[in-house]
């Protein structure tokens, strides 16, 4: 009986250990190392055959140089700030677009809802990379959007959208919109229609019933949706790499360049560690929101 319980609890902990804690330890170790022309491209590496002395030598060579380096070049903190700003604005845009869509779905006829839900999830059936590439085809100067707008005579010269931050916002909002819609829809769909009727009965107009009842009762869904968009967007790198120009600074892109272009694994790891620290705060808030929602539903 005890063994069974241990196994049951042990499996998820083992999973966390193997797939989160150990990789995290490795990244942390690399971030404390120095760049080297070797395979792997950093030093020191641990050689246990050297015994206790080798381990001590290994530890003495670790330092915080890479983190200090991050503070000397303003590229890094600007990239962090820019990522936070882009994530915040994208989250707001996704909320403004996602809430009405979720509301529309929740108010739709019951037999339509599964179909609408399918339409929201449908893009996931195609590779994310291909979908972002598709936006290149739409947004470029010779792309479908410019052809269409020029064709109907709204504009004379093509709009430059690709390789600007506008394109990045379009790409991010498009990609992450389902993560905003689904949790909001889940709370709105469960909302008892008689609550709205009760609010109207007690003197609310339709609009004030929406603000005083629907909005507060969808709070947890809205918060969950915002975090589900905000957290991954901070580290996003594919969208700014493909749709953004050189001016769009995001920490995910910086990290990618350090790692693959400069082959500076230690600095890239230091960037990743800081990114993780930045993300811990919203992740903790997100967990708290989930817990509160569960409590409220009891």
């Amino acid at each position, binding site marked *: 009986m005890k063994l069974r319980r241990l196994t049951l609890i042990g499996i998820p902990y083992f999973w966390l250990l193997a797939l989160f804690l150990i990789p995290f330890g490795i990244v942390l170790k690399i971030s404390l190392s120095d760049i080297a022309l070797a395979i792997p491209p950093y030093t020191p590496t641990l050689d246990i055959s050297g015994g206790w002395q080798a381990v001590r030598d290994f530890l003495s060579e670790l330092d915080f140089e890479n983190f200090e380096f991050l503070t000397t070049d303003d590229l890094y903190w600007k990239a962090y700030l820019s990522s936070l700003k882009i994530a915040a604005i994208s989250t707001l845009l996704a909320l403004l677009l996602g809430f009405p869509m979720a509301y529309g779905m929740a108010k739709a006829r019951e037999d339509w809802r599964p179909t609408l839900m399918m339409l929201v999830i449908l893009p996931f059936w195609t590779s994310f990379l291909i979908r972002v590439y598709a936006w290149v085809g739409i947004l470029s100067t010779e792309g479908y959007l410019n052809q269409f707008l020029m064709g109907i005579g709204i504009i004379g010269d093509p709009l430059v959208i690709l390789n600007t931050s506008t394109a990045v916002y379009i790409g991010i909002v498009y990609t992450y919109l389902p993560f905003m819609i689904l949790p909001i829809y889940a709370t709105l769909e469960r909302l008892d229609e*008689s609550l709205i009727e009760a609010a109207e009965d007690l003197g*609310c107009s339709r609009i004030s019933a929406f603000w005083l009842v629907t909005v507060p*009762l969808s709070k947890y869904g809205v918060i969950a949706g915002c975090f589900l968009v905000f957290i991954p967007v901070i580290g996003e790198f594919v969208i700014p790499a493909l749709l953004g120009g050189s001016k769009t600074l995001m920490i995910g892109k910086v990290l990618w360049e350090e790692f693959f272009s400069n082959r500076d694994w230690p600095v890239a790891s230091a960037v990743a560690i800081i990114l993780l620290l930045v993300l811990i705060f919203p992740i903790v808030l997100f967990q708290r929101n989930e817990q509160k929602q569960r409590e409220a539903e009891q």
Partner: protein
Amino acid sequence: MNQDTSGKEFAPWNDASEKPLITFKNVTKKFGEFVAISDLNLDIYAREFFALLGPSGCGKTTLMRMLAGFEAPTSGVIELAGQDIAAIPPNKREVNMMFQSYALFPHLNIWDNIAFGLRREKMPKDQMEARVEEMLRLTKMEKFARRKPHQVSGGQRQRVALARSLAKAPKLLLLDEPLGALDAKLRQDTQFELMDIQESTGTTFVIVTHDQEEAMTVASRVAVMDHGKLVQVDTPDVIYETPNSVYVADFIGDVNIIEGTAEANGDSVALTWTEGQPALIGSANQPIAKGASAAMAIRPEKIAISSEKPTDRTNVLQGKVLDIAYLGNISTYHVQLDNGTVIKAQIANTRRIARRNFTWEDPVWLSWTDTAGIVLAV
């Protein structure tokens, strides 16, 4: 309920000079092809406790939702205090509703739930606070004002819902199956509380229920509905004692229905119902043609059981005890007649059960007077 404070009988529906608070004039409501309410006329008077009673799907809830403003009649006019309310949206009507699910706002505490409607009126703060406190006192919920709805019991939630709907002092309060979620004991207590509150506030109550006992207990008048029509609208005692149709007799309380052919016989009507048995004598409210098919409705508690053939009663039948349902205060005897018909008769258990007079298979005589049964056209 039929007595008002002055001791004079409260019966505005019998007073031609009295103006009704609510009037339904030829109201029809259709949902697509389905007719929920069909050409309905009804007057409800101020300070009444009016019950809409019927099986599910009879249109009683639709009728209530039309009063609240959530549904509009397809044709016909609904007047509140002489004014057509068709164009008035729910938030502008002086009508409040207590929902079946209570519909308390889960994100607001009980105090704020009750204050919700008053805040929408932009009532001055001190006045509003006084009103909320008054409602809390009325429903005995003062101690729980700061709790959220999910932190109080079902009965308390029901009271909060009542307090919230009464807070705005509406002309008319609608109650949609208000006690449906409560257990039997709490239901009874709450029924009396509802009556007290209705009387002390002087508000007109319209209650929707499928529970005939509840309707009989609380209401000044009961409307029995079926398939979108009113079958009978009367005080509970009239509905019970002189139902106007087999449907009403069957719906309200326990009843024996004996079908046969009517033979006019002065004020009372004789009913031939089976070969070799004497005709049954009962009273009739409406004239029934000789030879028309009719049915006698006779309540089980009006039938006496005896071991000797009674000589002083008009209707006498012989049978044997088939079943006994012991309900504590009363026992219902199922007596099978010679032709197979089963008649229910009730006896109050004024003696301890050990001294019961009859048991299974005992031959017994059933008897009732010539005014106990009602003969109805079928």
